[in-house]
């Protein structure tokens, strides 16, 4: 591997995106949970949920701030690192980029209002109503940005003639074939991961011995939501797999280590490839890949050997796929178990092993998000715009990139540590019990 401009540009983009996606995911999912909590609090006249919404919002502001910063960075960095791509992309796919700024603008305005108006309205529902534009804005942001990413996978809405981009149709570019499944998967998994992280925090508090009603209500709400969202995510993943089999077979084949085009294809789980290109040490599920790709065990799935050699994604993305799916299944199982135990009155849902299991689900979900994005981006290689422009042709020709990489690495390191320290300090200095007592001195 040579550290040339292309490689460094890729590394810097990877680093920025992997850092940004943590905050972007939380940014999309947590408003939903805040909205639920405040809704329950007002509806049931239960101050525990209101305090929950307040505390989540306070943590959320910090992650949003970092998300705004890293979002601004990636927005500009795309032009700085991939100027040729942005020149072509700008001609065809600028519309959703433009819309995303509006969506974010909208969200930022209402988040500002929401934060500073907790006690300003006579009718409590007025304040809750403010969560809707926030939620709408953040999910719309995810929608528009994912649209751009989908376009990179299945570019539409233009023709290239003698090097000129003609017949541009911005709407067709936006509504490209990869868009629906991708948006669905991104939004569902963001909701799931955010709920899982909040569940992990609640489980952590209970493990630490703070077993009050407040913590238990938090855990019940978040675990149930995680389970529901994980079902949605799994469904979205299934839709995505069927889409890939149809429109981007090389990505699916590389992710699944499927080499020969055949009917009744097996699903390969982990394993290794030997020197002769054969899969070893893997768990095989007969015909399952065909089923996942087309809904029947006889579906023909295109194998990697039918793809030109210089257009094959790297094989290691298989591990990303397996990591993502395994974690998804785990999170679904552990939250289902909790919900069932909690329903059955005689079972102890707050047993230590189960709480530890939920605690692990939070960070694991974020790892699954990262694995999923690495899979999605590397699975598109060697293309930056599939079929039109290769990554290697799009990178910047500027040679100060190595220094820029180091500067950003330092920035993310500092931001990452600071965010963690501030969040921990913020909640350690003001435990939930104290806050409940301060705000609602006359209640149980």
């Amino acid at each position, binding site marked *: 591997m040579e550290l040339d401009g292309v490689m460094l540009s890729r590394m810097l983009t990877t680093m920025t995106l992997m850092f940004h996606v943590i905050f972007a995911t939380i940014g999309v999912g947590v408003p939903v949970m805040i909205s639920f909590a405040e809704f329950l609090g007002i509806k049931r006249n239960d101050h525990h949920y209101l305090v929950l919404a307040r505390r989540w919002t306070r943590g959320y502001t910090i992650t949003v701030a970092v998300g705004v910063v890293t979002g601004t960075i990636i927005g500009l960095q795309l032009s700085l690192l991939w100027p040729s791509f942005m020149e072509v992309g700008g001609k065809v796919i600028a*519309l959703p980029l433009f819309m995303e*700024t509006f969506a974010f*603008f909208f969200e930022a*305005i209402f988040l500002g209002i929401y934060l500073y108006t907790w006690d300003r309205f006579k009718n409590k529902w007025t304040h809750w109503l403010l969560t809707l534009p926030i939620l709408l804005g953040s999910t719309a942001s995810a929608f528009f940005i994912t649209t751009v990413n989908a376009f990179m996978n299945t570019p539409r809405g233009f023709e290239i003639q003698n090097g000129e*981009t003609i017949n541009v149709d911005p709407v067709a570019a936006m509504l490209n074939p990869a868009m629906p499944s991708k948006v669905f998967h991104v939004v569902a998994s963001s909701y799931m991961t955010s709920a899982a992280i909040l569940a992990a925090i609640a489980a952590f508090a209970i493990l630490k011995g703070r077993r009050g009603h407040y913590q238990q209500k938090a855990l019940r709400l978040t675990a149930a939501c995680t389970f529901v969202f994980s079902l949605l995510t799994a469904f979205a993943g299934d839709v995505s797999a069927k889409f890939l089999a149809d429109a981007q077979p090389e990505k699916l084949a590389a992710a699944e280590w499927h080499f020969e085009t055949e009917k009744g294809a097996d699903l390969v789980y982990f394993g290794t490839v030997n020197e002769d290109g054969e899969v070893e040490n893997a768990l095989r599920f007969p015909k399952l890949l065909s089923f996942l790709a087309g809904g029947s065990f006889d579906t023909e799935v295109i194998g990697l050997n039918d793809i030109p050699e210089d257009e094959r994604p790297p094989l290691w993305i298989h591990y990303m796929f397996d990591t993502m799916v395994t974690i998804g299944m785990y999170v679904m199982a552990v939250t289902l178990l909790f919900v069932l135990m909690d329903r059955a009155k005689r079972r102890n849902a707050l047993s230590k092993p189960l709480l530890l299991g939920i605690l692990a689900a939070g960070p694991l979900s974020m790892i699954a998000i990262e694995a999923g994005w690495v899979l999605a981006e590397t699975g598109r290689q060697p293309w930056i715009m599939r079929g039109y422009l290769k990554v290697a042709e799009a990178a910047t*020709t500027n040679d100060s990139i190595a220094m820029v990489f180091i500067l950003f690495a330092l920035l993310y390191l*500092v931001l990452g540590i600071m965010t963690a320290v501030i969040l921990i300090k913020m909640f350690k200095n003001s435990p939930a019990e104290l806050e409940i007592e301060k705000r609602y001195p006359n209640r149980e």
Partner: protein
Amino acid sequence: MNYELIGITVLWTFLYGYIIVASIDFGAGFFAYYAKIKKKDHIINDLISRYLSPVWEITNVFFVFFFVGIVGFFPAAAYYYGTALLLPGSVALILIGVRGSFYAFNNYGSRNSTFYLFLYGAAGLLIPASLSTVLTISEGGFLKEIDGNVIFLAKELLTSPYSWSVVFLSIVSVLFISASFLTFYADRAENNWARKTLRQFALFWSMPTIVASLLAFISLQMHNPEHYSKAVTEYWWMFGLSLLCFGAASWFIYIGKRYGAAFIMVMLQFFFAFFGYGASHLPYILYPYISFRENVTSDAMAAALVVVFILGLCLLIPSLVLVMRLFLFDTDYVKGKKK
């Protein structure tokens, strides 16, 4: 339809909006730090944070909006600037990153730390300085195209008197705009101590603004005579109006009355200067490579962007009005009686 003119006007208006709101924000950071080391922070920092807390993210969006708009309307400009600005652009980004997140850490997280405030205040002056170099580069002479590769001539930029005069102008403008707005805000809050301090800041930074503008003009004449002669022959009246507005603003602040009108005059001062500058800069977006007529995007994309822009405004303007009513014109909030 004349999309390129609509496009550039929309983008320029947004950049103008960014310059005003971001200047208030950047300058406020500097004043907050200054007040802290002078032990006057209890007088004005509360006021500053009451204004900044709900709006700082909005400020950032103005900026993102501008460059996304450039990519949309003038993709070729994205290519040239993108290649050339890797280093200065990244430095500005890192500063924005440090500033934005430290603001949040300080404000929502821990208690006031002088170190955060220092970083915050210093970054607030360095960001306009580094962003202003983009305008300098747009005058030409700092980029070279060799075999299709765009090369940024950093040494020329760092040794150019024009470049430094623009940096100087950007910093003093930030402080002047910010001080005149905060004086108005303190006046509304009926916070006499803060108003007194901030009024002094405003008066202090008024003269340097004009001196810096003159310097920028003189050095522009040396650097890009074509642009300079267009500015003084065709658009001299814009700069004249700008000067008149400056005079009126300074007068209002000096006599200590009508701070609202004073701030509007400051906004108009920069409006005329900024649009006079922009209009005389045309047809070039990047002299002499990118002109706004030749490098505009396709009609289909431009039309779509304009439609989205209008729809977006229908959504945003009412929301912004709501923010202003809740935080800027709600006297109880401004005075700190409401949380």
